């Protein structure tokens, strides 16, 4: 994750901070959580239920549900749709995101 993708120039609003697994990540007003993570070079924020494989945004429009993240303790939020807000705490969603089945 050491290669932050180059963000296109032009937008100059004031960034604010969210966290991903405890680490600060800058976000711009109006960006989705997924966009803020991409801008920081983070492409995966979920592990799959069966194989434990890393996943992130794929379809980018809320259809595939690959970008599910745990946001402020709530699992299964679609990061490509949810706008980033100052202080949002994202954590890698493991499997279905609940401590145990059915919880």
């Amino acid at each position, binding site marked *: 994750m050491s290669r932050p993708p180059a963000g296109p120039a032009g937008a100059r609003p004031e960034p604010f901070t969210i966290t991903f697994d405890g680490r600060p990540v800058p976000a711009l007003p109006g*960006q989705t959580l997924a966009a803020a993570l991409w*801008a920081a070079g983070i492409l995966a924020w979920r592990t799959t239920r069966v194989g434990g494989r890393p996943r992130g945004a794929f*379809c980018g429009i809320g259809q595939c549900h690959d970008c599910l993240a745990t946001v402020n303790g709530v699992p299964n939020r679609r990061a490509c749709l949810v706008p980033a807000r100052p202080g949002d705490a994202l954590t890698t969603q493991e499997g279905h995101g609940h401590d145990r089945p059915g919880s």
Partner: protein
Amino acid sequence: MTVPAAEPGGPGTEGPHPVPDASADPYDLVVIGAGPAGLTGAVTAAELGLTVALVDSAARPGGQYYRHPAPALGAGRPPAPHHDWTPFTDLGHRLAASRSLTHLTEHHVWSVARESDGTWTAHAVTGADGTDGRPVRTRGRALLLATGAHERHLPFPGWTLPGVVGAGGAQAMLSAGLVLPGRRVVVAGSGPLLLAVAASLAAAGARVPAVVEAAGYLRYARKPRVLAANPRKAAEALTYGAGLLRHRVRLHPRSAVTRVHGTERVEAVTVARLDRDWRPLPGTGRRIDCDALAVGHGLVPQIELATAVGCATRVLPDGTRGLALGADQETSVPGLWAAGETGGVGGAELARAEGETAARAIAARLLGRRADPARTALLRRRRDRLRAFADAMAAAHTPGPGWTGWLTDDTEICRCEEVPAGRVREAVTDLGARDPRTVKLLTRAGMGWCQGRMCGTAVACLASRGAPAPPPPDRRLLAVPVPLSALAAEEGEPWEPGLPEIREVPKDGEAPRVPEPPAAPRPPDSPRAPGSPEAACAPRPRPTP
């Protein structure tokens, strides 16, 4: 008027009613989707004197085609050149000026139903991702579906690695969020969208080492008259072509990414040549280093709201299924209309023409007036010309049956349920599955969060074993994920503990109820009836020399 989902007290609501609007007077027209087709349809209908609710899942109008950054991001339009932006500016002005139009943003419609009095109800959940717990019902005397399309995907080894993103997804994330998935992005798959995506990514600063297109562009030349009748489309292609030349993007026709390399994320791809049936040619693979791959194989009309109430469908030239529509855009179910990609993928200009056609026909019917004959004739001519072009293009990018040749047994087919190709093949060859539904029951492929939107094409192709087979169109009872609490609210229970009981009683005195599909007669090509051949993986006729 724009009514965001987050703001309580939308039309017809008073206080914390669990499901507002059920007993309010219906709108004349409810439009679902605020892309080019729905937006045009909604403003046209409002200008013709109808009261209109424009219901859309996004926070801003435009749909996927006119997706643009939030105002807070400080960039008014997408960062890459957009050749067709002016019509959207015009539609935005008309939307702002419409007094009889209510724009319901961040409303995700999960079902539509015809009520006993002949009106339509659209059931929606609200919020950016539909989880804010406030379900909404919107009623209308007529319904216009403009729900667009989603991307078609064909799996290949490594396509679930982080860094592999949908081509349309990369475009969407760039247009709205001003971000790229990597610095060096290969664009691959099939269809005209690839050139647009590559041009956007390159203009935004990504290095695009290759555009990999499975079809041969020469197939366009089979319909010279259709091409000649659409000079603007040819100019569009030239614009993209010139942009790609400027950014030194190399185009690989008749080729595909047959493997992605990397362990935790994309490090490189293998690109192989294909024969005319999209079968990879042995020994032609070469490695291209990249840190992301944007991939897509065309678009699939998003029609589950319509098929759930029995609308007839037709097989399109690219093997996808769209709604079967009459000359004025009405579906086979009276009072339910559709425009744009729902009737077959054809682009924004066609979508606008269809949206206007539908709105004029709906206004004529509801107001008992005759539609302006000159305008109707002009719109029909435009639509026929653009539809012919779209059909020619779709046919050129139909996946060939040989694409399954690049699958390995451990290639994941269903991303949600992590079902590999080997298990799907086992279900087909050893257990006798012949259709996607049986494969789903045996393997869980298509049973996950996306409801088979990502793997549906692949599963249908594998189930039919390359032969023309009749997989029915997808039926999804719920078009978007709906929390059980929202369904409970539909049944008349408070959707959250501690909230008051529903006070509202609909006019007819019945309790609010979950929708049931109306007893519409089922036409011959309807969802449950045996369909027509699925062309997406069918052997195509050989051209005669």
